[in-house]
């Protein structure tokens, strides 16, 4: 539920399809943007898009990677045969960009547009609390540099649209006179497009002017996914890709799948499966604070996972969630033993004893492994029926022969972190 990045090809196709509506038909951009995904039948593409075989092409990965040119992830001025080879050589293979390694699985193929450096312009629209800001610079492209310092800006108060005249006056001072009207009309249309489709971020760097045509060469954009019920039809059937490099492990994918099957929320990110501190925290806000506290107390390297369960998942889902974490944490032993923090704040209306049922079931099932891995468990929780929940946990510790320390709302929420990590209060 938030601002979500979209693929470059989806953004460009949307512009090609709709910009004419927002400019009384005066601006048309040809829809020549092809997405190649892992399941695309590449051989069939030239029949479907005849221009692929006829024109020089550009190919780039299309999965939210910044500065692709600098990472040599850009093929320019190629014919279809080369493009096909280039994609084939990279599809489904890992690549490292900066510090992040991810698998390449989506590419955009589009016509190569020959132009001079002086034809490149920078345009961005950003959303702020008071309105939307248009940033423009008369020199765009890879080497645009510190755009925050350089760009001309036009703040558009919420609920209004800038006229072409506003745009010319405020933004286009450094643009050759003969191009001002063309660019001003384009920006005016793009702004309407941006606002009407509930974009929250749009950067085109560069767009180029050739003759009386404007072509966006490189685009990054975000949509407000909560506006799906308003703008979803105009967006077309798009999906929101995960950030580049977020490769889900088997267990993470499993929890994501569970999450999608329940109205409740189940989240899991494995940070370091060999680390000693595992958390199973109720509530999105509380889970962040537990992870913070582990970090702030200087144990970032010991933090094995981040995750949360909330929204009252039923016993079965809580059980499966707990089981996944217990399985992960008992696979390998650590000479100093391991910790499991079953934490949470004071619930509003969720019955605490009920939510513990699934966790208790999983703990019982993993009794032997927990003992073998020398796991110590800390519990802290409050809310409806918490006393019963905590009593059950205390009893369980005695039954299982696994040390379980149990605390309620009288103990500060994160105290169990220092108890575990520092061996005392």
């Amino acid at each position, binding site marked *: 539920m938030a601002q979500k990045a979209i693929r470059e090809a989806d953004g460009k196709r949307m512009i090609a399809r709709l910009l004419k509506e927002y400019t009384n038909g005066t601006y048309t951009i040809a829809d020549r943007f092809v997405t190649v995904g892992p399941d695309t039948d590449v051989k069939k593409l030239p029949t479907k898009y005849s221009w692929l075989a006829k024109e020089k092409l550009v190919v780039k990965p299309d999965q939210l990677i910044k500065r692709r040119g600098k990472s040599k992830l850009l093929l320019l001025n190629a014919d279809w045969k080369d493009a096909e080879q280039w994609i084939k050589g990279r599809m489904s293979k890992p690549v490292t960009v900066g510090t992040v390694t991810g698998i390449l699985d989506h590419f955009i193929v589009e016509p190569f547009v020959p132009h001079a450096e002086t034809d490149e312009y920078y345009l961005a629209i950003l959303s702020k609390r008071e309105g939307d800001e248009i940033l423009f610079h008369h020199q765009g492209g890879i080497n645009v540099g510190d755009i925050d310092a350089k760009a001309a800006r036009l703040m558009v108060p919420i609920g209004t649209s800038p006229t072409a005249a506003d745009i010319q006056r405020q933004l286009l001072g450094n643009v050759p006179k003969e191009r001002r009207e063309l660019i001003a009309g384009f920006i005016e249309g793009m702004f309407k497009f941006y*606002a009407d489709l509930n974009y929250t971020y749009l950067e085109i760097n560069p767009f180029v002017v050739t003759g009386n045509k404007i072509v966006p060469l490189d685009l990054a954009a975000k949509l407000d996914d909560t506006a799906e019920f308003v703008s979803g039809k105009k967006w077309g059937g798009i999906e929101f890709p995960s950030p580049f*490099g977020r490769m889900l492990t088997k267990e993470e994918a499993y929890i994501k799948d569970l999450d999608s099957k329940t109205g409740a929320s189940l989240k899991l990110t494995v940070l370091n499966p060999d680390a000693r501190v595992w958390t199973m925290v109720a509530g999105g806000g509380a889970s962040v604070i537990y992870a913070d506290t582990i970090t702030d107390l200087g144990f970032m390297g010991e933090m094995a996972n981040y995750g949360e369960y909330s929204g009252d998942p039923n016993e079965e889902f809580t059980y499966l969630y707990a089981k996944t974490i217990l399985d992960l944490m008992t696979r390998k032993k650590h000479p100093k033993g391991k910790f499991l923090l079953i934490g949470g704040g*004071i619930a509003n209306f969720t019955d605490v004893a009920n939510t513990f049922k699934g966790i208790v079931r999983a703990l019982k099932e993993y009794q032997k492994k927990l003992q073998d891995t020398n796991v110590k468990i800390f519990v802290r929780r409050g809310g409806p029926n918490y006393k019963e929940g905590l009593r059950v946990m205390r009893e369980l510790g005695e039954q299982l022969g696994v040390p379980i320390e149990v605390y309620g709302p009288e103990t500060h929420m994160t105290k169990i972190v*220092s108890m575990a990590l520092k061996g005392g209060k």
Partner: protein
Amino acid sequence: MAAKKDYILFDKDTQAFIYNMQTNAVQRMLDFDFVAGRKTPSVAAIINPTGSDGFQKFFFGPKEILVPVYKLMKTATVNHKNVDVMINFASFRSAAATTEEAFTYPQLRTVVIIAEGVPERRMRELIAKAKQLNKVIIGPATVGGIVAGAFKIGNTGGTIENIMDSKLHRPGSVGFVSKSGGLSNEAYNIVSQNTDGLYEGIAIGGDRYPGTTLLDHLLRFEKNPDIKMLVCLGEVGGSDEYTIVDALKKKQLTKPLIMWVTGTCSKAFKTEVQFGHAGAKAGSDAETADAKNAALKAAGAVVPNSFDDYGEKIGMVYKDLVKKKIIVPRPEPPAVKVPMDYNAAIKAKVVRRPANFISTISDDRGEELLYGSMPISEVFKKDIGIGGVLSILWFKRLLPDYATKFIEMAVMVTADHGPAVSGAHNTIVATRAGKDLISSLVSGMLTIGPRFGGAIDGAAQMFSEAYDAGKTPAQFVNDMKQKGVNIQGIGHLVKSIHNPDMRVTIISGYAKKHFKSTPLLDYAREVEKITTSKRDNLILNVDGCIGICFVDLLRSELGTKEADEYIKMGALNGLFVLGRSIGLIGHYLDQKRLKQGLYRHPWDDIAYMLPEK
């Protein structure tokens, strides 16, 4: 009513509209009102756009009160001029439009938007509009907030036990604001453990564009002389916290501020992470929690080293203010207890109550409907048929196949007997008078009695009494003759010993073939021999045959005692009623289908024999 100070949004007299029928939230507000010692309920009315005007019953402490319900916001505002708050439980689709509508009523000053997922652009439009009209929005995506001892928004604060534990029923000195609503219970708990308690707590909501910001509320708290210290919980992402840094630097905030920004763990993640809230994502270094915490500390806020000493720092500042006599701790007021809800008490096993009704045949409460102990899926899996269902629901056991088959045969045989019999006739007349299905059916059904359709029951009783008394068939026939009573189940209008009724042949044939024993049927056949020797149409008729066979069946399956109880209760009449309903409904549909008009009996078919004048 004295005008509220501009920094007061909610006080002990504030009344609100609740938009959408949120009965739980309303009851929780009223429970809070009771423990806070409010004189008037904090909910003036409910606006329910999908319902109609009326009232809804709620508890106000131990009493029950009626809260008005309006379909239109306009009617609510006209009837409740003093209301200046609307708590908007509309969905994310309609939250913006309904808030906009609320803005058109000058009396409504504060709107709390609960929904999560309001589009950002719509929200920004609302923010601009609110500014222009001098309105206050709290939310979206929030649980709301609370003014301790005065006013509680919706579900804030959790259960009433938690509200009492966190001392939210009476005011303290702390103004608290956070984005997260989920953590507000925890924060109020921390505040209550380390200070004299909360004065006001607001959760602005997790969206990127909350209607009011952390700073908006801190500035309000700054102006409120009853609030002595400020506590704030920020989070990674956005730049809201920097406006607080500026306000600290500009001395717009002078009261001690203890603040912590969550999300310091984001550095442990390699790729960009979206935490729970829409706004909680660091887009740049300045948006990280570490940078914000450092900037706040530099500007003079009390910033703990981690959330772990948040409470300690709050306590430290509080003690200092007490020492300086800025805060003078007040004696604890006597605590009021809200009566426990009956359902909660049942769940907690602290009360019990004798039930007014008992059912031993079916149960609709579980995963699956149960007939007896048999789940409905099993009913079909085992294909027990209507006879099986009837045997479970009537006789509390699944009878063997031969018996359930017999029940079905009885239903089939009694289903109809043509349009001329009195039950069908009455149904037809009622149908033609324009009555509905149930009235027409019942009209026919009410005809069933000793003379029409009642012979099944009557025959069963008469024959079994005679048989049980050890009378020979001849004695029985003679006895009845002397009493001048017709033997029920004997005799037919047209059928005779030479022209047997096929229905009787089928039923008695089946009984002879499949029943374990048929003593009563055999007895009846003997009786029939005597009666037909007198007149050849005095045969065992279909009603008698069914009734008598049924007694044989029930006695062999349930034992004589239990079987006779069912017969006394009228179970056999039930069989006829059940079967004949099929036919009566058929006649009703038939007449409707044929569009038959009102029936009027012809004069010449009635002999008018009035007394002479």
